[in-house]
């Protein structure tokens, strides 16, 4: 804080190019187009090139797939928390359901992985949405508490009734044809999810979603059934989560109880907070940072989760806006100190 003085304040103004490129006229100038496209292109190309750059290190290629799986989950969390207003602490539930559905489709019905994964995402999404319908009237704390219990409950039930192979899980799930397919399927899914959802929340329906988040009574008073919209939101998020779970089951060729584990609930939240909530890109960036760190910490076992939690708390308290909003501010605005 070099220029910080008691009798001055920080003023933030939009850069000229930002203002100019907000309008349609941006198309008429290469400079404005470049300004608009650069960050997006950087993100897309960066993700698409990652497997190629790491082609010498199969281990880290696998990490990319894991990053993408967590990203899908985190995008779903971000969407649900910041656009629909439902904080779901039970990300593990979506992953678990997706993984089990995909594994069952593959092992019992013989559906090949590239077909069973999208199918599992849709079927899993429907299952999750139906199971969450009883709690949809809840909001805030109450939804968070109940959603936290879903994965725990699911794991207990599978254990108690010895369903789907009980504690052993379902073995022998077919993997992806090869590592490249695995990575590019996941990267494509992440890109589609990010840009698709960003478009989705800008449509009219996104307006209703944000209305549900900010003031659901008002939305209700407008004659709109908020439960339907909440269910739709949960469906979108759980499709993404189940997609992640289905991919994970094919990656590990196994679906089991550990897919309901805590990692899947805490990492997406941490990634969203670190990357910046409400941006939908933020969670991906968060995962890109946190998951490799987690791989480096793998030797330390459960310390990983402890580290996450500390990072999470730190970010919430000291930098609650997250990386992406911070970067966007730097990119779009300039700051200066002005005398009061």
């Amino acid at each position: 804080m070099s220029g910080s003085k008691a009798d001055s304040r920080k003023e933030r103004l939009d850069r000229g190019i930002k203002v100019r490129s907000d309008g349609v006229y941006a198309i008429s100038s290469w400079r404005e187009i470049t300004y608009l496209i650069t960050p997006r292109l950087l993100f897309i190309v960066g993700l698409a090139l990652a497997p190629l750059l790491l082609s010498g290190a199969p281990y880290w290629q696998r990490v990319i797939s894991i990053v993408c799986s967590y990203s899908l989950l985190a995008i779903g969390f971000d969407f649900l928390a910041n656009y629909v207003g439902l904080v779901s602490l039970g990300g593990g539930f979506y992953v678990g359901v997706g993984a089990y559905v995909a594994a069952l489709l593959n092992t019992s019905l013989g559906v090949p992985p590239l077909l069973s994964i999208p199918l599992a995402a849709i079927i899993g999404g429907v299952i999750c949405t139906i199971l969450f319908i009883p709690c949809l009237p809840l909001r805030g704390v109450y939804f968070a508490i109940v959603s936290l219990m879903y994965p725990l409950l699911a794991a207990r039930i599978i254990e108690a009734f010895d369903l789907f192979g009980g504690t052993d899980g379902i073995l022998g799930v077919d993997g992806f044809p090869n590592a490249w397919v695995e990575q590019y399927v996941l990267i494509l899914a992440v890109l589609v999810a990010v840009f698709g959802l960003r478009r989705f929340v800008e449509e009219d329906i996104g307006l209703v979603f944000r209305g549900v988040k900010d003031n659901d009574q008002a939305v209700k008073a407008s004659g709109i059934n908020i439960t339907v919209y909440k269910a739709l939101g949960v469906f979108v998020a759980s499709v993404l989560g189940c997609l992640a779970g289905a991919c994970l089951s094919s990656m590990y060729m196994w679906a089991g109880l550990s897919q309901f584990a805590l990692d899947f609930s805490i990492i997406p939240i941490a990634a969203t907070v670190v990357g910046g909530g409400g941006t939908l890109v933020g969670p991906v960036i968060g995962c890109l940072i946190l998951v490799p760190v987690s791989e480096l910490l793998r030797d330390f076992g459960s310390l990983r989760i402890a580290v996450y939690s500390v990072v999470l708390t730190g970010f919430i308290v000291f930098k609650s806006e997250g990386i992406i909003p911070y970067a966007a501010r730097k990119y779009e605005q300039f700051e200066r100190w002005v005398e009061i």
Partner: protein
Amino acid sequence: MDIIIYGIINSVSLALMAVGFTLVYGVSRLPNFAHGALYVLTGYLTWILMNRVGLNYLLSALVALGLTGVIGALMYQLVLIRVRGMPISEIIASYAIGLAILEGLRWGGLKGGTFRLPPFVEGSVSIFGVSVDYQRIFVVVLGAGLMGALLLFVNGTKLGLALKGMAQDERAAMTLGIDSDRMAVVATAIGSMLAGAAAIILLPLGSIVVESGYHVLIMAVAVCIVGGLGSWTGAVMAAFLIGFAQILTVVLFGAHFQVVVALLAIVVTLIARPSGLFGRQKELEERV
């Protein structure tokens, strides 16, 4: 007969787990998701003080309680106070602190059945033909005593009344000169100590494991939701309801289903009576 006796014991245990959570929520509207972690932490601290530092049982329990209270207060003062009024951040931050404590303990070597607190008094006694060990009797007696003491504290002391005032109407309490931030710190400290007290009373029944942190959190939340968040009588009633329901399920169906009962109770309560059995005003608007 054993259903009634074990039902009572189980209910009092649940009430013990839940009372700290509901106190914190009632006073500062803060869902303290680190509750279960504080429970395990107290047990672990007691164990450390007893076996590593060499204090006697009572002293180490008291010191551990004090430490937990301080940790709770620090947690509020340093972290949670900054996110107050932002429910999403409150949940995430307190949950993250709880996870950090629990998983940190797990990493620090807290696993398996090696960490045990001894029962206060060994042996068992037969009540109406049912053999009950002394520790379980202690649970009931101390649990009831703790509730009674809490009731007296809240209704009979100035600090307690200030907390009650905060719980009823924070703004009105502030106009009467009650410092709401300080009270919230006090409430979190007391809530943490209650979690710790529950740990010291209940943990001799089993061993200190990380998983019980999650279990305690779930049970506390279940009891509080069924009873109506922030309502103390509701919490005790709900503890008895869930406690007996659990024992009945164990007898009729098997031990696996114990947790399922609590979750079903939550779901049913939330659908049928969203503000809980004894939920208070505003509550309905807040949650539905």
